[in-house]
């Protein structure tokens, strides 16, 4: 599976949000979409999920136009995790079972439940299996949401700011799960992110978005001081501490 964006433009009414976007996503990589607020990160991920239709251009899955596929077919190809999870009194088990919705004809089968239990085990969420969603902590909730997307067994994973409301430990745990699954299942994982350092640590491809366009797209080479300074509109420095690369703003307070 290859996901390809060709000359994609989109606007909210008369306000243009994305212009002539082009890029290609390959399996087995984690793509971090970076940019300042309002650069069009969320719009892009919503377009990739099929929620919005582009004004011109298209998104292709192999050779199929994504926006011409049926919703149920799309649900078997692309899983999406929003930034904010909607709470309910569904238990974690039943919530994960939602991930099987595209495959269920009439009644979910034992096989579907086995998949759910398998993911629970793998993500160490077993102890939460029968807890209602509204009684989970922020970290548990985000992991559960991710688990629901994995239960969907798609080749493409779209995550909108999956770690933005988490503490350091939970950020790492969530990102580690994402990396492991991406490598193991050869997923195309696309994540919008605010935290450049987290992106540098876990992602291996970067989409830098600025003013409706892609400023740069590629591997670690695009994460240069020059590009990042331009992206965030302030000069930054890149340090290497051991194996970790860190980006810090130059202007201190």
């Amino acid at each position, binding site marked *: 599976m290859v996901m390809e964006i060709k000359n994609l433009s989109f606007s909210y009414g008369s306000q243009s949000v994305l212009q002539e976007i082009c890029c290609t996503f390959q399996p087995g990589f984690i793509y971090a979409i970076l940019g300042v607020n309002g650069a069009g990160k969320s719009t892009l991920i919503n377009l990739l999920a099929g929620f919005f239709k582009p004004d011109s251009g298209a998104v292709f899955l192999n050779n199929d136009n994504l926006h011409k596929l049926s919703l149920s077919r799309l*649900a078997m190809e692309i899983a999406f995790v929003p930034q904010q999870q909607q709470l309910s009194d569904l238990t974690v088990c039943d919530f994960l079972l939602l991930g099987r919705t595209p495959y269920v004809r009439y009644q979910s089968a034992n096989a579907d439940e086995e998949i759910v239990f398998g993911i629970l085990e793998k993500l160490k969420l077993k102890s939460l299996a029968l807890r209602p969603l509204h009684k989970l902590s922020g970290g548990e909730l985000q992991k559960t949401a991710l688990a629901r997307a994995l239960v969907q067994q798609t080749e493409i994973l779209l995550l909108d700011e999956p770690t933005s409301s988490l503490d350091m430990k939970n950020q790492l745990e969530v990102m580690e799960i994402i990396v492991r699954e991406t490598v193991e299942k050869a997923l195309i994982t696309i994540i919008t992110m605010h935290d450049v350092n987290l992106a540098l640590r876990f992602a291996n491809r970067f989409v830098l978005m600025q003013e409706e366009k892609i400023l740069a797209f590629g591997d670690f080479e695009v994460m240069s001081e020059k590009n990042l300074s331009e992206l965030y509109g302030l000069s930054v420095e890149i340090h290497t501490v051991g194996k970790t690369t860190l980006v810090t703003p130059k202007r201190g307070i």
Partner: protein
Amino acid sequence: MQTINLLYKNRQRKHLFYLAGFTLLLLPTALCILLNGAIDISGTQLLESMFGKSNDSSSLILWQIRLPRLVGAFFGGVSLALAGTVLQAVLKNPLAAPSTLGIAQGAAFGAALGITLSGMPDLLPHLQGLPGSISEYAMTSGFAFIFSLLTTGTIILLAHLQNSGKESIILAGVALSSLFMAGTTFLQYFADETQLAMIVHWTFGDLARASWPELYLIGCVTVVSTLYFFSNRLAYNALLAGDEVAQSLGVNVKRLRFVSMFMASLTTAATVTFFGILGFVGLIAPHMARRLVGSDHRYLLPLAAVLGVLVLLFADLLGQALLDPVVLPAGVITSFLGTPVFLLLLFSRRRSGTW
């Protein structure tokens, strides 16, 4: 691994147990409805009448009064409870129900309009060929039906126009309710004594009002909508995770919301048209069910339906017993029950943030 599986199955078994238990409770309650009333019918008389071995008055009472009442309670309970459950799911608001969205009040206004207009035959000359009672009846029911659908149309339009903030839909329902109540009051002010009595009497939801032909109609509408609701139970579950997630799971959210609201209002309209206002059944039954099995629609829908029937049957029995020999219509009882439930929902913050 094995243990979660077991725990999960146990939980499902508990839900099925509730469902089976309340369904079994229907039997003795139904029997009470058949045996109780102005004239005593014994068990043997009941059996003889049921299987056509008797042709006396008890058979007549059973087939023309008690059985229609029971069947009416069944369809009315199922349709109102499911309409409430589904409206709550698609509007994401625990207070959504046929009576809180103004659908019932719209029907009441329509009925009042029908009653008033049929008192003025000069206005509608083409109806003069029909016998008075039939045209009056047709107008009352017809207008009630049209106005309940109109109310829903307005609600659907508002829901469509305003994509976010579904809380305000309930407020819109409150506004529509008071508009229609004002309209009904206006008509009552100008109605003569007979009409006034008819209008007031119409609003008392009464299970005894419908006879077989109407029950067939209500039955058909209830069956169609129930099939639709049950076939979408997983989609309603997906909606609990939010519109975007539901769509990414393959649910056509806009169509689901539109068709569900249409179906819910259609069954409500049919029920309200022929029984009058059975207030709050669509609110009480879903919330009792929610307390027992949570928001999983695989269990919530059937349990709410069963509880809806039970609430109506109990209301009917209570109405007969409370001020014996005066028989109170079931609608009066359900409205009394509904108010505390409504207030409880408003003021007790449920454990979750959303429900």
